[in-house]
């Protein structure tokens, strides 16, 4: 069981690190690639966790998850970047040192506050859960920090991934119906978000969220 738990740690790191890196990347394409890595890790985690009660339906659902998360989403994003050639949109609210500081603060908070809380979950080892919950908070912080609409979309998707990892580690068993629902949901969401992003772009001339302030008057 030792090797598997160690392997799980690696995968968990693969899920966690891209979030931090999305914060720091200047280029959108890197961000998309990071998301691709993260979703690959998550799908493999899914495969591992549902290893024992494999059923045909489950396999199909996992396949579709992999398909959507790894191929469809990045394809859409790259198309968006190409069409509006917005390679460099990595503007953030806070400059990088402060962002790192905030991420550290969140980690620390997560560590102190939630340490006792996860003892009740019987299935896996608690600090896995800790990391995934930290991942949730930091991906939420992406939404706050990044100005570009594309990076905010990535933030939301990585948030979804972290929640899935948290669910897996918390031992919530997967059933195909749930999987299908999630994936279908994400697919639709990606399509709409892209259409929406291009509309914003046409209207405001850039994907920077702060330009939209004129809405309130």
């Amino acid at each position, binding site marked *: 069981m030792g090797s598997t738990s160690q392997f799980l740690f690696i995968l968990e790191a693969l899920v966690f690190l891209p979030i931090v890196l999305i914060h720091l990347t200047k280029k959108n394409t890197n961000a998309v690639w990071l998301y691709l890595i993260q979703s690959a890790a998550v799908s493999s985690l899914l495969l591992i966790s549902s290893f024992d009660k494999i059923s045909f339906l489950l396999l199909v659902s996992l396949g579709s998850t992999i398909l959507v998360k790894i191929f469809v989403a990045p394809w859409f994003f790259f198309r968006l970047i190409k069409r509006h050639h917005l390679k460099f949109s990595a503007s953030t609210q806070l400059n990088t040192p402060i962002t790192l500081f905030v991420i550290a603060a969140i980690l620390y908070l997560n560590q102190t506050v939630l340490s006792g809380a996860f003892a009740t979950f019987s299935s896996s080892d608690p600090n896995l859960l800790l990391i995934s919950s930290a991942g949730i908070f930091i991906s*939420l912080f992406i939404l*706050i920090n990044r100005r570009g609409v594309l990076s905010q979309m990535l933030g939301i998707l990585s948030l979804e991934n972290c929640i899935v990892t948290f669910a897996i580690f918390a031992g919530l068993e997967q059933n195909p119906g749930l999987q299908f629902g999630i994936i279908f949901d994400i697919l639709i969401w990606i399509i709409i978000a892209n259409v929406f992003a291009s509309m914003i772009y046409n209207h405001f001339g850039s994907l920077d969220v*702060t330009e939209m*302030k004129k809405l*309130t008057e």
Partner: protein
Amino acid sequence: MLSFLNSSGVILIILSLFSIGAVGALILQKNNNLANWWGNGFAIIGSLVSGLFAANILASSQTLAYKISTSFPGLGLSFNIDRLSAFFILIISLITFVCSVYALGYVKHYYRKYNIGTLGFFYNTFIAGLLLVVMASNALFFLIAWEIMSLTSYFLVVYENINEQNVKAGTLYFIMTHVGTAFIILAFFLLYNTTGSLEFEAMKNGASALSPLLKNIIFVCALIGFGTKAGIIPLHIWLPSAHPAAPSHVSAIMSGVMIKTGIYMFIRMFFDILPNAPLWWGICILIVGSVSSLLGVLYALAEHDLKKLLAYHSIENIGIILLGLGSSLVFLSAGLKTFAMIGLIAALFHTLNHAIFKALLFLGAGSIISQTHTRNIEEYGGLIKLMPATALFFLVGSMAISALPPLNGFFSEWLTFQSLFSGATSFGTLTKLVFVLSAGALAFTGGLAAACFVKAFGVTFLARPRSDEAKHAKESDLSLQIGMGVLAALTLVIGVSAGNVSNMLSGVAGSVHGLAGSEIINIANSNTVHVNNEFAVLSMPALLAILLAALLITYILVKILSGKQKITVGRTWDCGTDLTPRMEITATGFSRSIITVFKNVLKPTRQNEIEYDDANLRYFPKSNSIHLELHDVYQSFFYKPLKNLLIKISDQMRKIQSGNMNAYILYIFIALMGLLLIVAK
């Protein structure tokens, strides 16, 4: 049949009668006449049944508890009708019965202008709401009933929506009632917090565990909450604009009965639920009562819109009721149970009297307005020759409200005086001063009310018509007269049989939790009322008999002395000039001297505009008009600063709406972290 009457089934029958009336009126709204007859017909039957039900409960003097449990947590539809609520049900059904009979004829003049079906619907639900408010004994159920009552009365206030004023009055009324309801909810919440249950019965037992500070806070919240509905002085601004806006038979019910639900809940809260009230509660209610009564009658004097005048008089009479209530609360806190009984009987009696003569006056005003199509007294005049019956009933109403002897208004003010006097005899210097000043305030209020109604009756009915609208007024038709006639007769009947009525009321007052201990002293035998061991004795029938005897003697004396002199009808003597209606005394003229006496209280403003033919030279004025208004003290000193404060606060809060999406997500994030911190600890 009688045993059936006080079973719990009757409550459902009453409510179903009103709901059938309401829904039926909606369905039949196409045909005006049918909708009118259906709506008011069911209201009449419903009020008859509820009247009998209440009378039966009062006669057999037992309480009826009945509970329908619902799946909703905390909300048990529990009815608890003890003698106090039965008394209020009796008032409600009496006034509703008369107003519905009146409405059969009165609503005709709405026929082509407004939708009668909606009027019938809201009218019936309004009465059902009133009855539920008085029957409910679960806080949540009570609040639902309170809300039904407030909302339906809001729709009735804005019923005549062509006139812009009504809609504005409606919104003001809407806001003020809900400010009041907020305070009521706060009070009930605090009670629920300590007693742990929403049932009034459980609250009653658990209330002794209340800490004094909490009890005082509940008192203040209840005072403000129910005070807004009752219309005490600082919170009264909605009443003079909302009551006149409603159709007359509805404003009769609103003014006669709806504001009494505030009084009912005062009694329920301060006597029934909150145990051993401290002294300052009673003193505070006494002060509020005397201020309300004095200022109410002063504003009524300055008013020349007939229905607004009557609305201000409702505030005055609520003040008088509060005087009775306040004095009995002071006695309760001092442990003098018999004096407290007198005070409470005086308050209940004046509630009954005020409901009767205020409804009578509003119905009278309604029939005048339906003939002259204006509410401004200055355009009436000489209506006594055109509408003799309405004039007689309005005169009886005005005599009753200015507490003139043979009628019922006199007896309840006499009893309030007795409770104030017994307060002045049995307390230390400070409390005694408050009692004596309240007695002074009541005396002045009685005098000024008489002055106001000489103005109202004199300018409306006597002398010559001042506008051609008033010239063509015709007597209102039968159902209106029956409505007013019944009430006028009631003022005399209750006035004369005041002794028996106060005995019944002492039974009602005794049923209240605070006064349960004191033995039911019937303060009157064979209609002579003996108050606090022979301090004061009065017998109303004897008073009436002596008055009639004196009138008879006068008549005979005049017949003997000048039997054969003839009477000729000539012109009014006016120093020889030709008398135009404009030379008659106007309402503003009549009350202007009294307003100038109280000018630093009322702050009259005076503004005249002169229109010139030659604008630049200004030698030849074409017209000179003068506006005599009252500076609205409450708007400028209480409500405007409050509004500015609220605006300032909300400006600060608007800053968080920066329009930046990231900021909003940041707020979510912070909230999430905060929540986690609390939960995880």
